[in-house]
């Protein structure tokens, strides 16, 4: 592990905890978050030079407290509260769950939820978030400032939602994490290996959530889904950094121990709760792929059933698109193409739709149409790894 990765990990393990404790103490989300962010910025400057302290939590705590006493000196009540803050060795109850629900409150815009969660719960700096999303630092900073102001001014609470509200609110949190995971997974290339690994943050967040809410089957489902995908990381790119499709990957390079663990988690969850949701179903599909010794030996009928269940719960055109791929292996490319073309209206702007059509058309020997579809797919993606793959097909 590089020093930079280690630094990121240590900060992530402690920054959210400190933020949670400080928000509880001050009752002011914005002020507490500023103090933690300051402490993180100072840590990122000093730790690479001085080394990571033996007790990073105590270090961050001391810096944030000192900074708070300094910055908030005019607010007498905050000073008193800060003076009372117990040091972290007395380990207060984990406030991070409340923190997560506040950051992912449905009254905040989706991109604000994402940026806030990364900054407040995972301890990323504004610069790191901007780099991960290829956005300008000032745009991200503005988004965060606006979101924090809304939390205070609109009275967004800092607490775990009531039982009757929990399913809806948890779903909001899972959507934010899933988005992070997708963003990280799709944008990861060998070139960008040095940038922040959002997939790692997404897995960490889901594991944290799973620890705090162990009886939520969809949290376990998302965790299994992320771990199953991560288990294939070593086989996803050529040494030159080009994307390798699932069907062409060297399956011996997959992390089979991680696959077994994630599959076991999924099976346990399914047996215990009998409550399949979209994340468990997507994980089950990923598990089918991960357990197949080769691409042709994949259990396509099983995958088709899982997609049908997923579509019942979540009738999205993207899930329909993926289902048509499974269908092509069960009932042939002509049947799949017919179904795919029925969904065309909702998917015209989606690169993978055209890439999948191209694949099916090639299977049917309609090469000129396949070429056109690949061209359209290439026009619609900005992702360098996908573009590389499409251009290679077009050059054939």
């Amino acid at each position: 592990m590089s020093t930079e990765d280690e630094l990121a990990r240590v900060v992530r393990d402690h920054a959210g905890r400190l933020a949670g404790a400080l928000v509880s103490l001050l009752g002011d989300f914005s002020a507490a978050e500023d103090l933690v962010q300051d402490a993180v910025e100072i840590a990122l400057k000093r730790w690479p030079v001085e080394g990571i302290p033996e007790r990073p939590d105590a270090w961050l705590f001391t810096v944030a407290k000192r900074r708070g006493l300094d910055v908030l000196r005019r607010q007498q009540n905050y000073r008193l509260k800060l003076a009372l803050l117990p040091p972290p060795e007395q380990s207060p109850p984990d406030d991070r769950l409340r923190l997560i629900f506040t950051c992912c409150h449905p009254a905040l815009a989706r991109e604000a939820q994402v940026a806030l969660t990364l900054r407040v719960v995972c301890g990323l700096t504004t610069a790191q978030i901007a780099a991960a999303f290829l956005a300008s630092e000032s745009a991200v900073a503005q988004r965060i400032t606006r979101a924090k102001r809304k939390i205070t001014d609109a009275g967004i609470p800092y607490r775990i939602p009531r039982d009757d509200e929990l399913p809806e609110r948890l779903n909001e949190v899972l959507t934010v994490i899933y988005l992070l995971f997708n963003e990280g997974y799709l944008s990861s290339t060998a070139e960008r290996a040095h940038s922040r690994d959002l997939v790692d943050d997404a897995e960490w967040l889901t594991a944290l959530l799973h620890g705090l809410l162990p009886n939520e089957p969809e949290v376990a489902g998302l965790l299994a889904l992320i771990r199953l995908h991560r288990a294939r990381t070593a086989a996803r790119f050529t040494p030159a950094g080009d994307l390798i499709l699932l069907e062409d990957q060297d399956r011996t390079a997959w992390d089979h121990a991680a696959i077994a663990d994630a599959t076991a988690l999924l099976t346990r969850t399914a047996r215990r709760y009998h409550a399949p949701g979209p994340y468990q179903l997507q994980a089950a599909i990923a598990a089918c792929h991960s357990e197949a010794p080769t691409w042709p030996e994949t259990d396509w009928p099983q995958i088709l059933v899982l997609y049908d269940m997923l579509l019942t719960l979540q009738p999205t055109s993207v899930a329909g698109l993926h289902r048509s791929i499974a269908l092509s292996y069960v009932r042939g490319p002509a049947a799949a193409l017919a179904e795919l073309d029925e969904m065309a209206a909702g998917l015209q702007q989606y690169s993978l739709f055209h890439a999948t059509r191209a694949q099916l058309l090639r299977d049917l020997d309609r090469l000129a149409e396949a070429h056109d579809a690949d061209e359209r797919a290439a026009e619609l993606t900005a992702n360098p790894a996908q573009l590389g793959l499409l251009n290679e097909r077009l050059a054939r």
Partner: protein
Amino acid sequence: MKYVLMFIETEEFATEFAALSPAEKEEAYRRVYQWFDDHADKITNRGSKLQGRETATTVRLDSGQLTTDGPFIEGKEVVSGFTEIDVEDLDEALRMVKTWPACPVIEIRPVAEM
């Protein structure tokens, strides 16, 4: 915290409502009164139901006191009434609003402390 709930009508809602029979209209009003009764302890100012958008007049002081016919924003959604509530936080306001039995859109705005 105090919030103002702004009740917003859509054209579709207004048309549907206009097509109701007198008895159905009465029932719709009854449900609204019931909602106000159910939340009486949270309502600090019952506010008002407003007359239709066609009755609105807008004065623009920044344009030489220009007086025009109609609401200040032309759109398919118009504010049709308002109510002030005092609740714990936004989540409580959201819970309250989710049981509102009439028009389909509600904007929740915290009241500024002056």
